């Protein structure tokens, strides 16, 4: 087993009303320290109002090879976008 502190991914809510966004990673022995270090490393200039940390090993992700099967099917479904529909100007704002 590695003697390194586990790797954590850090997410910061930049301003009230926004979602948390991934800003980077760090090593820490536990969640509490990860949050404290995350604050020191990623919010030294007013970059955030809230922090989430998640141990990297708990994140499941899509594989690069899945990109086609997963995301291409939505490309030809243009009817999901409002721009697909021609609504006459006479109808007014819609």
């Amino acid at each position, binding site marked *: 087993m*590695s*003697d*390194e*502190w*586990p*790797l954590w991914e850090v997410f910061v809510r930049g301003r009230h009303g926004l979602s948390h966004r991934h800003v*980077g*990673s*760090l*090593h*820490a*022995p*536990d*969640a*509490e*320290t990860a*949050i404290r270090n995350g604050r*020191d*490393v990623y919010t*030294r*200039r007013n970059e955030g109002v809230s922090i989430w*940390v998640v141990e990297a090993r708990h994140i499941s*992700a899509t*594989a*690069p090879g899945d990109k086609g099967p997963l995301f291409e099917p939505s490309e030809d479904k243009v009817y999901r976008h409002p721009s697909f529909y021609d609504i006459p100007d006479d109808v007014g704002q819609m």
Partner: protein
Amino acid sequence: MYAQMVKSTGRGVKSPEEMTPEERAFQARIDADEKIEPRDWMPDGYRKNLIRQIGQHAHSEIVGQLPEGNWITRAPTLERKMILLAKVQDEAGHGLYLYAAAETLGVSRDAMTEDLLSGRMKYSSIFNYPTLTWADMGAVGWLVDGAAIMNQVPLQRTSYGPYARAMVRICKEESFHQRQGFDIMMKMAQGSPAQKRMAQDALNRFWYPSLMMFGPSDATSVHSAQSMAWRIKINSNDELRQKFVDQTVPQAEYLGLTVPDDGLAWNAEKGGYDFTEPDWEEFFAVLKGDGPCNAERLQARQKAWDDGAWVREGLLAHGRKRRAAGIAAQ
């Protein structure tokens, strides 16, 4: 630069015909300005080259804290002390962002640290020079961070996603570093004759080491050609050095200081300054370990690593125990 002489495959750039289909597809993605992400397929050489480059860069940020850390307790005012502390803290952050980027390539943080301590991995030659007076804090911020910025700004567009994103964060923080340095130089240069002499002396000592930061001319280097094809190097060393000189000389004039180069002259034809090359013998000696502070710097890193061992181990054990007991963060 912070990564001065990064070896690539050493075999030169492959032609499309020599590439495997995977390599060809990979090169096409880079040529199309797509970012490569950690789990994407990449040639072994690309991965190794990047680990070397990002690792060297990270080590430079960390070792680079030492010459400035030297003056935190002796800063002339409380405000200067707080500024310097904030700047040095930023450099620790830069090291962290870069180590994290390198780790996405499959190398561990501990392995990189051990390679630094054993001398297998390098850091920038510039940090092997001593910081003798307070004016050196000005010269380091102005010249050393200035040279670093010159190299880091284009690297925001590098092909490896995590490296590019680390560079974006770093560049946001760097311009404060250079400006606080220039601010110190302005104060000193406009101060008493003794202060002005200190400022001039700092410029004299840091000028050529700063030019060396860009590394020797790499116009004919096969390593650089490969790095450029992979977009992990964007500009040649000479190009960046020229840009740095052109930007810095008028700033020195503004300060009323003299760049220590008799060969310095404006060349209207090329639209830039002609200048004397640094002593490359000295550069290679410093890189090899024979600079004025190499031993001291590595000793300081070794001591921090050794003295911190009980903290790392203790907190790791504590974290594991809590996890086993099922105690979450709060």
